[in-house]
Each structure stands twice: as structure tokens, then as C-alpha cells.
């Protein structure tokens, strides 16, 4: 049974001989015999690659809801964007794919420079001077931003807006079990954080808002900054990188830390991962930055060179005093993001953003024209995502739309917990979060609206 090891029997014998051993088993002599596995692992027999490919393909076929088989109107932080063959080809180059952390910069200028370009782009989108080399995903970036801000403000109370993605809020709360931070939920009113609702409590060290919120609405970042200034908190903005290209940057509006989910920048939907955690901050906070940072420098001959820098923040040097525990990050996705952004360019990215806005609005207009279907937040401008309420249970509606070939969006009830401060409890079960990217056509949207009309009139 061939595998990926090169050892021939003769070589194994030769190697054992060199070590003075009689058998491979003797290599494990240090392991108490009583603990060793006897009789082998209870796993299916290994099978050749083509058989495995066939098995995995068979499983893949059961994923009938994939964006290549159904028209995708699901968003909520994970979007069906165009990823052109050129980005796939470049991002798949094995030098990028099969390297590891650039510990030896002399032979890692490829990844280092790509990350330097990525950092530049993330910093520009954030409107801040520094970005790191990536974190796991949007949720991890929010967690790290809170940790940074608590450390900077020396106050462990976090005002967490309900406009932040519900899953990310869950993750924040999970991790707060360890750090002990106090997470205070800030409800939304008409899609905007209502800080009055949490006034009077302990002053926050951190305020976190979504931009746009996960419901597609717009916070007034000036107001958020004022709330921060009043309380002395750091301002953390969880921004969508596509929308960021056409909006005023959070940095220019006072954000101290900007985070986000970078999946939209060239990474496929991937059933949720690997994604890409974006992270940018002010220069003041750079020594608290989590994760890796690439900086430009010179080599001993004066050639421009790149290297990971300010390493003293990191776990391998600072151990229990590190700014974060992150080691492996999502470098490949960051490299891909640099490539995808290079492909889009200034105007392409703005074009994608504009199309997402107009397509989502067109979608919203078409479906809310259906009898019984209304916007969750009538009259509130939304972009990127839009929540619509139907007369039926959302999951029933989505199931029926699936029968017609549409992944019609996500049920708010599947995203949020009961009592979530972002949505009125009375409509939560009947609300669907939808999104249309630059890939959605008018024909597709019109067809969805027609299908939805049928579904709700049944």
C-alpha cells in the first residue's frame, strides 16, 4: 500500500542497523508497554487516493446548498464574491502554500513582501497606520481587539454592540470566561447602538460596534467616538472590508482598532473557514498588537528586505506575558487577499462595493414589494445585508426557497439567541437576513422574488 513515505525495506533495515536496533518497535522503547496501542487503531483500512477522492466527492455531492448549485443570497459575514481564475492560480502557488512562518527571512521574502502589501491594504481600508499579518477570523479579531483595548485602557468593561455579528458576540463571551472581562450588551434601536440603554453602569474600557452592523445598518461613528470620549474607552470598529472601500474609514472617524472578516477578499465560502481576521490599530497601540507584524528593513548589503518585527510581543518570546497566544495565523488567506485586492484595484473594489449596495437594495425592493414581506427596519438605509420579515417561519420559507434552487438567506433565529438585542423578539422567527453580492444578477433576484411570492402565498 503506497503512502507518502520514501522508505524502502532495505533502507529501514539499514537505518535500524545504524541505530543498533532490531525492530521498528524498539524505537518506542521509552513508552511504557502497558500504555501502547495494541491491535492497531480502530479506523477503516487505508484506501488509495482515487478511492478517497471518490468518497469525498460523494460527500461533496450531498452539499446541495452550495453556491455552485444554488443561487446564494446568504451573507451574514460570509459572502459569495467573484474569485477569478488568476487569483486562484497565484494564491495556489506551492511556494506560498507549502512554506511556514517566515522565520528565516532570507528565504522568505516572497511571503514577507506579500504580507507587507497586505498590511498596507488593510491599514488603508481601516484608515489606520498599522495592520498585522492576520488573525483567525473576524470573531478572533474582535476578541483580540478587546484584549488590546482592555490592556490599554486598564478597564475590563466592554460595551459590545448588538450590531456586531451574533456569532462573534458569542465568541467574545466564551473567551471572557478566561479573561474575566465584563461584557455589556448594547442593544440596537433602529439598527443603531443605543448606548443610553447601558448608561449608568461601570465605565467601559472598550466600545465595539459593527460597521455596517450585521443587519446592514450604519452606526454614526461620530456618536460612537463621543461615547468613547465620554467614558475614556477605546473605540473598536468591526468593519466590512468591501464596504470600507467606499465609506469614510473608521480610522478617520476616530477608531483606535479596526477589525473585520476578510473572507470577502478572495477566500471561498469554505463552509466557514479558513477565513481571515483583519486587524489594524493606531501607532500608540502597536506594542500591544496581537500576532505577527512584517516590517521593511535592509539587508547587510543595503537591499530592501522584509522581516517579522516587534517580535517581543509574541508568545514564543514573551510566553505568559505575550499580547496574544496566536502562533499559526491565516497567512495564506492574507496573501490571497493581497492578490485579490491587486486584481480588483482601487476601482474594482469600489465597483464591487457599489454593486453589493445596489444589488442588495434591488433585492430588498423586490422582495419587500411582495404582499406580507416587509423590511425588518422600514426606512433605515442598509447595505451589504438586509433583514426582511415574512408571514411564515423563516426556516420554512428558506426550505421552500431551497426547493426552487435558492439559498434565500439565513434565518435570524439560526444566527441569534433568544432575547438578542438586535431584533424585536416578536418577529425574530420570521425574519431572514439576505444579501446580494456583485455576482447576483437581476434575473436571479427577480426569480427569487417570484419564488418567494409563491412561497408566502401558499
Amino acid at each position, binding site marked *: 500500500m503506497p503512502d507518502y513515505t520514501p522508505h524502502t525495506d532495505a533502507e529501514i533495515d539499514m537505518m535500524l542497523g545504524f*541505530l543498533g536496533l532490531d525492530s521498528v518497535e524498539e524505537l518506542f522503547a521509552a513508552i511504557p508497554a502497558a500504555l501502547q496501542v495494541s491491535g492497531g487503531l480502530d479506523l477503516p483500512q487505508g484506501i488509495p487516493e482515487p478511492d478517497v477522492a471518490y468518497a*469525498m466527492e460523494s460527500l461533496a455531492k450531498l452539499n446541495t446548498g452550495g453556491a455552485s448549485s444554488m443561487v446564494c443570497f446568504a451573507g451574514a459575514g460570509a459572502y459569495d464574491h467573484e474569485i477569478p481564475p488568476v487569483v486562484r492560480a497565484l494564491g495556489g502557488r506551492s511556494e506560498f502554500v507549502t512554506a511556514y*512562518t517566515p522565520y528565516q527571512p*532570507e528565504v522568505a521574502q516572497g511571503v514577507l513582501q506579500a504580507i507587507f502589501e497586505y498590511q498596507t491594504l488593510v491599514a488603508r481600508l481601516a484608515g489606520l*497606520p498599522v495592520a498585522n499579518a492576520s488573525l483567525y477570523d473576524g470573531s478572533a479579531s474582535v476578541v483580540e481587539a478587546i484584549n488590546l483595548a482592555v490592556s490599554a485602557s486598564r478597564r475590563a468593561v466592554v460595551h459590545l454592540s448588538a450590531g456586531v455579528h451574533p456569532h462573534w458576540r458569542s465568541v467574545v463571551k466564551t473567551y471572557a470566561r478566561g479573561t474575566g472581562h465584563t461584557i455589556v450588551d448594547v442593544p440596537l434601536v433602529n439598527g443603531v447602538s443605543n448606548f443610553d440603554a447601558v448608561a449608568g453602569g461601570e465605565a467601559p474600557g472598550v466600545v465595539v460596534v459593527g460597521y455596517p452592523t450585521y443587519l446592514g445598518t450604519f452606526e454614526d461613528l461620530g456618536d460612537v467616538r463621543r461615547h468613547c470620549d465620554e467614558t475614556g474607552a477605546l473605540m473598536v470598529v468591526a468593519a466590512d472590508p468591501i464596504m470600507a472601500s467606499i465609506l469614510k474609514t473608521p480610522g478617520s472617524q476616530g477608531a483606535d482598532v479596526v477589525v473585520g472578516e476578510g473572507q470577502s477578499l478572495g477566500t471561498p465560502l469554505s463552509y466557514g473557514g479558513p477565513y481571515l481576521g483583519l486587524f489594524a490599530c493606531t501607532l500608540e497601540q502597536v506594542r500591544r498588537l496581537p500576532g505577527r507584524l512584517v516590517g521593511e528593513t535592509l539587508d547587510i548589503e543595503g537591499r530592501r528586505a522584509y522581516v517579522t518585527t516587534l517580535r517581543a510581543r509574541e508568545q514564543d518570546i514573551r510566553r505568559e506575558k505575550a499580547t496574544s497566544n496566536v502562533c499559526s495565523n491565516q497567512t495564506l488567506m492574507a496573501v490571497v487577499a493581497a492578490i485579490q485586492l491587486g486584481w480588483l484595484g482601487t476601482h474594482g473594489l469600489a465597483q464591487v462595493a457599489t454593486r453589493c449596495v445596489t444589488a442588495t437594495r434591488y433585492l430588498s425592493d423586490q422582495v419587500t414589494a411582495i404582499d406580507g414581506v416587509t423590511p425588518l427596519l422600514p426606512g433605515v438605509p442598509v447595505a451589504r445585508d438586509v433583514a426582511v420579515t415574512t408571514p411564515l417561519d423563516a426556516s420554512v420559507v428558506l426550505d421552500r426557497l431551497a426547493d426552487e434552487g435558492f439559498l434565500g438567506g439565513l434565518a435570524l433565529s439560526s444566527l441569534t439567541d433568544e432575547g438578542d438585542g438586535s431584533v424585536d423578539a416578536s418577529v425574530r422567527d420570521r425574519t431572514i437576513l439576505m444579501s446580494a453580492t456583485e455576482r447576483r444578477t437581476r434575473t436571479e433576484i427577480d426569480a427569487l422574488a417570484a419564488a418567494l411570492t409563491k412561497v408566502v402565498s401558499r
Partner: protein
Amino acid sequence: MNLATSAAPGGRAASTPLLGDAREPTIFEMSVPGRSAYQLRTTGIPERPLSELIPSGALADSPVPIAEVSERDLVAHFTRLSHRQFSVDLGAYPLGSCTMKYNPKLCDTIAAMPGLADVHPGAPASLTQGWLAILVELEESLCEITGMAAATLQPSAGAAGELTGLLLMGAYHEANGDRRRRVLIPDSAHGTNPASATLGGYDVTTIPTDERGLVDLDALRAALDTDVAGIMLTNPNTAGMFEEDIAEIAAAVHEVGGLLYYDGANLNAILGVVRPGDMGFDIIHMNLHKTFATPHGGGGPGAGPVAVSQRVADFLPGPKAARLADGSYGWITPERSIGRVHGWHGNALVIARALTYIKVHGGDGLRRVSERAVLNANWLRKRISKNFPAAYDRMCMHEVVVTGTELKRQTGAKAIDVAKRLLEEGFHSPTVYFPLIIDEALMFEPTETESLQTLEALAESLDRIADEARVAPENLHAAPRTTPVRRVDEARAARTLVPTQDARIEESG
């Protein structure tokens, strides 16, 4: 000519090492206003001015500047960058503690299948039965491999798994009405362990390593009390040695009510040989990217599933994929779940790769992987011991830490010089100065996919380097001389921080 000759021409390939020069412009330097590469689908959606759709205060005057390049220049730029990057696919990468094995291309193909890659994570279970089956099958396989009862696949990497494990530890004790504040960690541990412990809310007590390269049992016993939530161990440890006293350690920790956490980064040494669960561990994270052959992507992504024994299972993050009573797959949340640790379900495509790898190997094949990884490490250990003696000179597991102390004393050549000089020989450097407890440490992990011939060539290179250190140490200090750049000025990078193109432009402007 009115042409800005400073603009970096995309079509000039001088930066390719093939052509012997060494500077690649940044994509920003190649940018020319008005150029573009993107092409988007025709949608037919009526255009509308953004000002009608977006609150006026929010809209920027002009889009954020990215770069404006042609597809041709984009391709040339990133292809050339790829030529400036060492990788497993180019040659041996014996970077200890990282398991830089060859990753089958099959896994890339599987991860790129539209039926896996194009699936939205929020799609309902009824439309993603294939994915749920993959998650369940991997969970079951990992439990069998580790001897555990249940697992979460959410953590994105090893460190995330550690923190998850520590939160589980906390939840477990809390459920017992127990608040414990200390976690024991050997001094040889990876930096993520103490960093995670801090984030998990614990104080770290460091346990020294004894002269065998193992946990000092007496010191451990002395540190144990009922304030100890648990111990984090890597076994084999980061010195590549198997913790032979593991049964005693487990008994001692359990006796005070603590849990044993297994840092599974070194699982490649023991697949099918010994299982953490059988050793007495309660919680383990695995680095799928190391053991189960996900390429490392220049620094990530990985995946760090956490498997636990029965008594911790109820606390696992949720939702979790599960086989339901009717034979279909769905999502369940463990009763006393600590909550989510990932925005969705974890690094799903990495998970699919790992399952692919496990299916090809089966149980026997996985054991063969470990046997050969250990065989390679030991052969190399013995072969290079004259110049580079192992820190602990007896049988090691999948990696070996050697020390350059003696070489440095004799010649002045440091571990870092050896590492840099080795690059010129066609090999990636080993991990240097880790674990911290070993002086002038060079940590070699050849992995099972390197051949005896490659190991021999590596050994010959090391011999040559040691000889050279004796007669011409300046060669080592000057190394590397044949790479696209030579030793970089790390101090300057930290002193004059240039983290972006814009920082540079400001500086020189």
C-alpha cells in the same frame, strides 16, 4: 521622455532569483492610475447613485486607494514573489516542532471541490449533509486516534485549541464548584502554552526539566495542590523526548483533582503507537496542519480541534455536528457548552484535508507515518552527533534537539550562523534557540517524508559547516550569501517601524 521611469515596470523579471538580482518592487510601485485587471459578471441590475442608498455622512469622497495594475503585471509580481520563497515543495524543511512534511496534492484537490469550497456556512443542515458527515467522521477518527470521547473542531489553530482546552478545564472545575487558579507548565513548553494559560485566566507555574530532558517529577509533586487546575504537557515534549513517567504524572495530577492537558503539536510521533487518552490525559488539542498534512500556508491556516474525555465532553463548544437518531446529520449543542470559539464551524477546508489524509492512511498507515518519522529523527540524531550532539543523548521521538554549545566554544559560530549557512546548502534551517532551556539549540524534525538520501545530504552539509566553522568561521557569519537578500537588519526594522508602504513613503518623503 515624459515617462515616470521610477514607476516599477511589471514586465521586468530581474527580481527572479533565476536571473540573479534581488529586488521586487511592491505592487504599489507598479501601480499606474487608470490601469485595471478586474472583470465582473454582467448583472443587469439598475445603477443608482450611492448617495441615495447610503447615509451621506458615511460615504467617502473617493474610494480607498488600492493599486492599479494589469492582470499581466499582477501575475508577474506574485509569480516572482513566489520565486523568492522557500517551501516544502522545494526541499527539506526540518523546522522542529512544526512537522513540515510533504502534503499530498490530493488534499488540495479535495479542498478545492466546489461541493466543499462553495458552501455557505449558514446553509441549513438539510442542504449540507456532506459537510456534516465530514465533521462527524473527522471527530470520530480523532477520538479514536487520541483515545478520547468527543471533540470540537472549532478552534482555528493549536493556540486556539489550547485556550479552548483551558476554558473547558475551567468549566469543568466550576461545575464541580471548584475555582482553581494555577496551571503547571514545563519550562520546555511552547510559548503558546503559557500565553494561552494567561488568557484562560490562570497563573502559570513553571516546572523545570530534569537532566533526562523530562519533567522533574519531584518539582512537579512539590507544585501540586488543590489550587492547580491542571497541567499542560506535550508528549513527546518539545525536546523530542517521551515523558516516560507519564503514568505517575497523571496519577499525581489527578490525585489533587487537576486535569491533564495534552499539547498535541507533536502527535506525529505517536500515531497508532500510544494514545493521550490511554496515558491519562483529559483534554488534547491537535494541530491538523502539522500531523494531518495541511500545508502551512506561509504561517497558516491550521486547525486545532480539541478532544476530551467523557467527563469534559458536556462542556465542549457548540454547535457541534452530530449523527441524529434518524441517521441524518444535524447540529447539537452540548448541555453545558462553554459557547462558540469560532465565527462558524472551524476551519472546515482544513478539516476536509485532514479527513482525506486519514482515509488514505487508515490506522496502519498512520502508525507507519509515526514509525518513520521517529526512525528518521533518530538516524539523523546519531549521524550528526559528532559535531552536533543531542541535548539528551538517547532515543528521541520524531524530532531531535542538538546543541551547538561546544561548536560555539571552539569556533565562535553560533546556532544562528549554522542555521543561516545551512540555507546555502539547499535546506531550510532547523528551529533555533528553542526550547529555551537548551543552550544553542538546533531542533531538527525531518518528518517521515524525507528520504535517507536527503538526511545523509543534510548530515554531510552539517559536517561541512562544522569543519568550515573551524577553519573559516567568517563564512558562517557571512551566510547566507546566495539568497535573494542576505542577513536582514532586524534591529532597524523594530527601531524604524515601516509596517506599510505608506509608512515608507512618509518617511522618505
